[in-house]
């Protein structure tokens, strides 16, 4: 399977394996087509999860990860792509309806935008929240301090 697609996509695709779990590293531009291909031709009909990881030291800071499962093949696979801060990824909602809330959560936590998402807004955090908590540079105390400063008028925020 890997050879077939490598042939098709060239250097944009890389297949790896760690502890017996397979994953593809895919170039950002190939994502929509590749996911569609996996769903339609390789029968990965169940999108288990969509998530992201933040690597602030890398040039491409974010890694977005799709975890897919195929009922027919009884096989799980991960698809990864790396993007820089501010870049967006194609939404998977047209492929898997479940991507809706999962992408909203990624947006909520990392601030990664998904193109073509029907209703991209915060899901777990309130709309007025500042910052994206799961980024590594997000200070846990900052939100609390701001609230205390505004509402209680305590300068130190503690």
């Amino acid at each position, binding site marked *: 399977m890997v050879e077939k697609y490598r042939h098709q996509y060239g250097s944009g695709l890389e297949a790896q394996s*760690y*502890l017996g*779990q397979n994953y593809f590293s895919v170039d950002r531009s190939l994502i929509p087509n590749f996911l569609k291909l996996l769903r339609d031709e390789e029968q990965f*009909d*169940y*999108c*288990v*999860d969509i*998530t992201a*990881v*933040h690597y602030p030291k890398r040039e491409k800071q974010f890694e977005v*990860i799709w*975890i897919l499962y195929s*009922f027919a093949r*009884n096989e*799980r696979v*991960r698809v990864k792509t790396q993007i820089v801060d501010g870049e967006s990824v194609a939404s998977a909602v047209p492929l*898997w*309806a*479940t991507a*809706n*809330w*999962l992408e909203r*959560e990624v947006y909520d*936590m990392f601030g990664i935008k998904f193109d073509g998402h029907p*209703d991209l*807004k*915060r*899901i*777990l*955090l*309130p*709309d*007025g*929240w500042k910052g994206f*908590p*799961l980024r*590594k540079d*997000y200070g*846990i105390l900052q939100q609390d301090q701001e*609230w205390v400063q*505004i509402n209680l008028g305590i300068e130190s925020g503690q």
Partner: protein
Amino acid sequence: MTAETKNATNALSNLDLETPEKPYLDSNELIINMGPQHPATHGVLRVILKLDGEKVLGTECVIGYLHRGVEKIAENRTYTMFNPYVDRMDYVAAVSNGLGYCQAVEKLLNVEAPPRANYIRVILTELNRIASHQLWLGTHALDIGAMTPLFYTFRDREEILKIFEKYCGARLTTHAFRIGGCQYETYAGFEREVKEFVAFVKPKIDEYEELLTTNRIWLERTKNVGVISAEDAIALGVTGPVLRASGVKWDIRKALPYANYSEFDFEIPIGENGDTYDRYLVRMAEMRQSLRIIEQAVERIPEGPIMAKVPKVIKPAAGEIYHSIEAPKGELGYFIVSDGSTQPYRLRVRPPSFVNLQALDIMVRGLLVADVVAVIGTLDIVLGEVDR
């Protein structure tokens, strides 16, 4: 600043509604706010219903009231320190959460729990599955208006909690397992008590069924209510009993066996129509299958160590792993990224309740208000897990 803005904009925009300027009686559509303080939303779920009379035209779930940032906490705790936190997600199935987490870290460390530990884990996890299903049954029946099953199921769930308490000292958030196995050896009489429980609860499950399965009103309230087809269920990523009730015979315990589930003989009950009644039957059958697994496990439980050789300081090599188990509510997955330090670089929980809840909207459209509570009940969500 935060909560108010959320109420005002977040909630209503998706349904494309305008705040009615006229008094309610003059407007054609009624927008009512179910929750977050509502007896039937199982916690702090808020559902905004757009109604035409009693008919539901659309829903929007507002979640996050119980958000504690579990994933962020994980990044600031060591692997061992984070272990008790997972119990607080799906607090009615804490043992399952712990099993998933411990196994994910074990996989990352490349160690295997010893056989005896696996047996103990399976027994406790299956007991927990029964407890979770009992709690679901009681509250679900209460939502539909049958008061009595709640007390019957809680009476019997108590026996499971007693076993947990005797085993690890805690009843609900058990923290029963450790990375690499179990910390505690079983107490004297554990096997006997588990066997007694199995014998005790079997007729009780029949008793619940007697009250409900052929009850005319129960049938009318649950048949063809909240139907979800297998295609929709798969597209929405719905797992667990909800998926199986739609006719998809898929259970991670069979498909991708973990612990030592492959050693046991049990069946995957499935439904046909994907309605509320089928989900009820599937869960009832699952309780019986869990009892079967427990019976076999207690019979065959081997002697031996209960802890694998795990370093004192857990420092997995850099890499990432996804491991999932069949929690009572569906696929509970842990995606852990390690950078070689003692703390997870990133820990993502794939919560079954969160994903299942997304199906609420298509399940209740066109039904009545009374069905909304029935469907919320049948999805078996725990808000601690939805919001994390």
